[in-house]
């Protein structure tokens, strides 16, 4: 066959790039020689904006970073500010945060499996996954009034208490999710087309994954056990008994298995947190005008997409001098080139999907 190398443009308007992402592909016929992501189409200058807002005012804006996991962003930022200001969060608030963060992981992973299967052409999976996700979003709506860009965690604690009716509702939803998950797995686990498109595709070894800075489920699918909830626990995660699912082959299929395994573990964690919910306040008393003495703090959490970190530097006023975000999707997307090289052009969609990126936190 005649060798033909050319560049191919994908996006920024493309249904499977999960936002406004542009990929410049170098291809030889249908084999991918290299992928260069072009960013910035959604750049809103968040970090600049945060410098002109008070510490409290920044929190709702973090909702718009990874907009499929707003609560995780709230949590990451609030924990960093609390570390910097030395704010002690009450035990009940820490447990409520765990409940919210794990429900958010569940919702994020359910959205992922629906979109991912849809990208590859299995459209019905989306309906089952979103049925379960709807129930979780209904919980969020009852808790804080919003379903997307929701705001449930504030500096010092949570926005409100988990009352008995809501706890009962969460338990009811947790009872239903495994059924929907079984539906999804029945459609995909041994599906020949799904396996053709995912097994052995987009492989990355554990060593390469670490070298590229990969974190989250995509890293663990390559067999590297690195999860902030276990390794650098925060917000009482060391109180709970759960496992960290790992993959062996580091391919798209393993990333699918790891995320589905994590949904089961999230259910376990939420149940334990509800069972052991301590009495007390749901938030610490934090001054409305929060002035923080000059200093710097860095804190990371395990967000659904990977290690989410914030660096906050204070200058003695009620506004941060600088907030720097370590966005897991941004760092993870760097590995796309290495994952795609040598695979077919049609695999790019599946590999990109398997990274689980959200452009809101890539472009900030």
């Amino acid at each position: 066959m005649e060798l033909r190398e050319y560049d191919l443009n994908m996006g920024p308007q493309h249904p499977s790039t999960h936002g406004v992402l542009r990929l410049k592909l170098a291809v030889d016929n249908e084999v991918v020689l290299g992928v260069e992501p072009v960013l910035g189409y959604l750049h809103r200058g968040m970090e600049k904006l945060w410098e002109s807002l008070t510490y409290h005012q920044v929190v709702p804006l973090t909702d718009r970073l990874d907009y499929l996991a707003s609560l995780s962003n709230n949590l990451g930022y609030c924990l960093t500010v609390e570390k910097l200001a030395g704010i002690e969060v009450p035990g009940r608030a820490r447990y409520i945060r765990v409940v919210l963060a794990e429900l958010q992981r569940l919702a994020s992973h359910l959205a992922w499996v629906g979109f991912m299967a849809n990208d590859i052409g299995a459209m019905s999976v989306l309906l089952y996954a979103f049925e379960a996700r709807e129930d979780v979003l209904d919980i969020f709506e009852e808790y804080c009034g919003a379903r997307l860009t929701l705001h449930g965690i504030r500096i010092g604690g949570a926005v409100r208490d988990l009352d008995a009716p809501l706890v009962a509702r969460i338990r009811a939803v947790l009872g239903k999710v495994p059924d929907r998950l079984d539906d999804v797995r029945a459609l995909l686990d041994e599906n020949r087309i799904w396996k053709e498109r995912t097994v052995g595709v987009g492989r990355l070894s554990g060593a390469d994954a670490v070298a590229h800075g990969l974190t989250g489920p995509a890293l663990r699918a390559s067999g590297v056990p690195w999860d902030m909830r276990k390794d650098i626990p925060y917000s009482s995660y060391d109180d709970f008994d759960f496992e960290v699912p790992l993959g062996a082959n580091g391919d798209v299929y393993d990333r699918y298995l790891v995320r589905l395994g994590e949904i089961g573990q999230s259910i376990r964690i939420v149940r334990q947190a509800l069972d052991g919910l301590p009495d007390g306040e749901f938030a610490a008393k934090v001054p409305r005008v929060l002035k923080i003495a000059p200093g710097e703090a860095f804190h990371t959490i395990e967000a659904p997409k990977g290690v989410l970190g914030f660096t906050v530097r204070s200058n003695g006023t009620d506004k941060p001098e600088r907030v720097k975000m370590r966005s897991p999707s941004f760092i993870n997307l760097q590995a796309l080139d290495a994952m795609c090289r040598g695979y077919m052009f049609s695999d790019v969609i599946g590999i990109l999907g398997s990274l689980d990126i959200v452009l809101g936190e890539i472009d900030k």
Partner: protein
Amino acid sequence: MPEDAADRTGLDGILEALTGRFPGAVLAGAFERNELSVRLAKESLASVLRFLKDEAGFNALEDIAVFDNLGAAGGDGRFTVVYRLCRFPGALRLRLAADVAEGASLPSAVPVYRSADWAAREAFDMFGVLFDGHPDLRRIYMPDDFEGHPLRKDFPLAGRNGGA
């Protein structure tokens, strides 16, 4: 020697090893909020990173953050560039900081840590910090023909022509 450095579990050993191995490079080292923070002369950055990765086992670079020190008293560099290294299993974290003047450059971390690539491009785009030896130092968020660096403290908030 490599085994020695890698076998030390605490961060105390890392600071000791750094000061012993690179006399003059370590300007300050302190424990702040349970993490080891080391201030370096920027010239030594590449060799310190190489040592930390190959011999002290810091296998991941988590983040690069830049701070604009505009107007701060006593600083000899306009910008502070912070590298966050991590070693796992074991979950050890290390913060390396180097000051750099406006228009000056730092040795690139990319030859040692591939994951530094985009973080360095972001630092260049937002602050104009230059990295010597970076394979592809272009803007990452702003358009290629954009002038200025938006996260600098003296970047006009209302736009360069007053928002008109």
